């Protein structure tokens, strides 16, 4: 039992006490949120552009001032003092309040946008109305709930990104990585798609109209990318549209495997991805809350890979639904498409089982084989049952349930709403099919690893505690083994918090990358041979 809290002061003692500057900064930040909240209760602000600017400026400057006061006066170094004493970052009272508020926000956002002021015909009101001027300035259209969300999301990544860079100002890897996620969020996720919307109907696109496309977002993270309405949009928009469609296919089948081979999945998950960007910046204060038990790891493997199977089935069914049968009209018919999917999945499975089977646990082999059989059986069903549906369900039913269960509930409500309870990478760890596919490559076909520095580990546990993906890094480091885990997003924090310089993220030769032998240097060489003898 800690006797730490014996003081009667309401704000507590250092390191959890807030300075006067931090209190004022909090007040400013919250006042920015209050403006949005007032708008939500339909307070009609006279000059929306002005009030929106005030609100966003207050949120940003409050956050920045707070972090400046918190970090700039201290020596550069690890700033985790009091993390487990503060209720916000240790699942205490404020942690739960934050979790519940965020979760409610997501439920309203996804399912009841009318409460945010979304009006189908006519002018928006409420919060969405407040954001109309900014949306019109960018894309020329009125705001939607997604525009509001996108703006707040970008503001959060930028403001908390600055906080994160201050916190790790001694660490260039962290600074550069954070600049990268801030850039990709602002440019690729926010501004470019809005500007692209201005092209719609113009002659550049042959009068067609592109679907909203965040270029860095690839299937299966944007599970909807190959849905019928989007394909129509791409194909109606001339060369540019066609190029974007090709880019979408290349992203997942060519670009991402090459980059993942060279750098590990971190090139995406912690350098580019928007979900990762929010997790690393606004979610940084919650990284220590991820569950490190072996049990959590088992659940993670089953859940995340099931999502991959789900998204594969769903996408196959959706594409299947709009393809035709007439070979003279379509170069890709329903049957060739299904056979293609079957061949692709079978060959991936076969190659992995032939060349890499010794790297799988037994349950993973059974799971993979089981899922393959199910998918192939369902594909086969098409050929036996003749017309109509594939996979027993209507493709629309599959699509809707994926979008509801995974797209909304998992990635939004649980994935972000539960940051203060389960940690900041719940979605990335348990739900993201993209992370699972990249992770599969990272584990089997990549130069990336976290190298353990000989025998220097003291088993302190900082690396495991601060791993947002719930990897028990110490379990490897204390045996002198390198860490090669599919879930590792390469955030670099384990290496940063290590007090003894034991961990280094690096891309190196494949030979000796996964050395499951204990290699504790400094020890007698003959002894280590004995230790590793099975």
């Amino acid at each position, binding site marked *: 039992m800690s006797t730490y809290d014996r003081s009667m002061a309401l704000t507590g003692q250092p390191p959890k006490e807030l300075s006067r500057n931090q209190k004022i900064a909090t007040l400013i930040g919250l006042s920015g949120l209050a403006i949005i909240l007032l708008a939500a209760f339909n307070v009609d602000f006279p000059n929306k552009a002005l009030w929106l600017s005030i609100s966003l400026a207050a949120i940003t400057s409050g956050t920045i001032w707070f972090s400046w006061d918190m970090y700039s006066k201290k020596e550069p170094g690890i700033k985790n003092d009091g993390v487990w004493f503060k209720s916000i970052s240790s699942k205490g009272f404020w942690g739960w309040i934050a979790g519940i508020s965020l979760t409610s926000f997501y439920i309203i956002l996804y399912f009841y946008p009318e409460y945010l002021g979304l009006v189908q015909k006519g002018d928006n009101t409420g919060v969405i109305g407040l954001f109309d001027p900014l949306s019109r300035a960018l894309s020329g259209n009125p705001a939607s709930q997604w525009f509001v969300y996108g703006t707040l999301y970008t503001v959060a990544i930028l403001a908390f990104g600055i906080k994160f860079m201050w916190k790790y100002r001694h660490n*260039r890897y962290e600074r550069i990585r954070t600049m990268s996620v801030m850039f990709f969020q602002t440019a690729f996720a926010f501004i470019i798609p809005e500007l692209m919307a201005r092209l719609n109907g113009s002659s550049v696109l042959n009068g067609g109209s592109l679907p909203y496309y965040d270029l860095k977002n690839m299937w299966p993270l944007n599970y909807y990318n190959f849905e019928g309405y989007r394909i129509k949009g791409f194909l109606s928009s001339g060369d540019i549209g066609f190029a974007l469609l090709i880019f979408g296919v290349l992203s997942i089948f060519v670009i991402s495997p090459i980059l993942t081979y060279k750098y590990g999945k971190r090139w995406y998950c912690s350098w580019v991805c928007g979900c990762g960007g929010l997790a690393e910046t606004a979610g940084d204060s919650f990284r220590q809350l991820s569950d490190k038990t072996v049990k959590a790891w088992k659940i993670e493997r089953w859940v995340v890979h099931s999502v991959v199977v789900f998204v594969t089935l769903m996408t196959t069914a959706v594409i299947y639904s709009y393809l035709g049968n007439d070979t003279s009209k379509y170069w890709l018919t329903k049957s060739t498409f299904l056979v293609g999917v079957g061949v692709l999945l079978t060959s991936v499975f076969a190659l992995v089982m032939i060349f890499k089977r010794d790297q799988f646990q037994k349950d993973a082999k059974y799971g993979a084989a089981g899922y393959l059989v199910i998918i192939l059986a369902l594909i086969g069903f098409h050929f036996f049952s003749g017309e109509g549906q594939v996979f027993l369900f209507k493709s629309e039913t599959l699509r809707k349930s994926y979008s509801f269960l995974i797209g909304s509930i998992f990635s939004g409500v649980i994935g972000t709403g539960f940051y203060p309870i389960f940690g900041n990478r719940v979605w990335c760890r348990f739900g993201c099919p993209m992370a699972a596919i990249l992770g599969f490559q990272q584990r089997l076909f990549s130069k990336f690893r976290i190298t353990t520095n000989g025998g220097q580990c003291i088993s302190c546990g900082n690396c495991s505690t601060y791993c947002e993906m719930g990897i028990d890094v110490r379990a490897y480091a204390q045996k002198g083994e390198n860490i090669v885990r599919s879930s590792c997003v390469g955030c670099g924090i384990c290496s940063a918090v290590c007090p003894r310089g034991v961990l280094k993220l690096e891309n190196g030769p494949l030979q000796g990358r996964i050395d499951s032998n204990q290699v504790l240097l*400094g020890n*007698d060489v003959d002894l280590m041979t004995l230790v590793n003898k099975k």
Partner: protein
Amino acid sequence: MENIVIIGNGIAGVSAARHIRKLSDKRIIIISGETDYFFSRTALMYVYMGHMKFDHIQPYENWFWEKNRIELVRGYVTKVNPEEKQLQIDGSRAITYDKLIVATGSKPNKFGWPGQDLHGVQGLYSKQDLDLLEVNAPNKEACKRAVIVGGGLIGIELAEMLRSRDIPVTFLVREDSFWNGVLPSGESKLINEHILDHHIDLRLGTNLKEIVADDDGRVKSVIIAETGEELVCDMVGLTAGVTPNIDFLKDSGIELGRGVKVNRFLETNVKDIYAIGDCAEQHEAIGNRRPIEAVWYTGRMMGETVAQTICGNKIEYKPGHWFNSAKFLDIEYQTYGWVFSERGMKEYEQHFHWRHAEEKVCITIAFNKENNQFLGINTFGIRMRHEVFDRWLTQEKDVDYVMEHLIDANFDPEFYKNYETEVVSKYNADFGKSIKMKKKSLKRIFAIG
């Protein structure tokens, strides 16, 4: 089935238990009075600082022990009776053993200062010490000033801990520069500066005369020997090193020096009794090492070694090249091979020292001035690759070779600024050489092809 009893659940005892289990089916019992489960002693500081909870510093989940059939007994061993192969726990319960491993670690030194046993005076070694610190120094209201006596690794850690709660700290260091019995002067000086940057009241060349009590038997102040100055304080940390924790063995017939005397096989003078870790004392020191090594890594290595011997693979304790590491507030320190301070320097030893103009980063390299052989390196604020230095030491590379390939040994995170070019040009200037550093080579680093 043979019954192996291990006294102490620290890194040495637990390493022995794990490896015995790997190699055999023997019954394994670990006895500890300190905690139910193994934890990382070096991480206790992070619990007080709020970086981790106590659970986090336990390297294995609680089911691990039962799954691996390692029985855990809570209690202090009060007596060992080798004739009957029996132990007594807490003065009452008895346990018999076939083989006994003593791995009881250390306890803080106390040098007979007046007032050293007052309330509010403590060391920092055990879980109990950590709990006590929460009582003695919970916050800056209850502890308006703390005085730390003893300038070593534990002293500076305790200072860092107290500063994390904004408690004013006065740090009494006997030496005229921090830890300069171990560190060469340039490095020691750099740490002195860093301590001051953290607003710690560092008093070099200062000894404790006595600790003064108030009416309730609590610490009220300390008096400094040199000046007679009285410093008012609410807590005193005694961190002047550690001694083997072996008082319970006094009348057991096991040969004791400062620690439990062992031979190279970690056997004591009594058959079937072994000693490992901090509490073991070699009859003769190994190489440049000390007879007693209170270091995490050596505890682990001795545990692995003794497990082989007990499981029928009798082997000698032969630690490889010396290495160690620590963190002084924000500055990481690593060492490979031997770099002695001016006090302990060998007559053949020569140093090359480089320090960055502004940042707190420095390197010292020791080499043999007769044949230029590389002897060791200390780095502050730069991480080095253990594997590479281990190889160079084994291959007895000369210092010029090390300089030429220095970049291969860098272990800093990607994108970090490299200082190696600057280091090498200072080396060239100091010794009139013209070494050109080679480009980093993954092939050399990972010893491929």
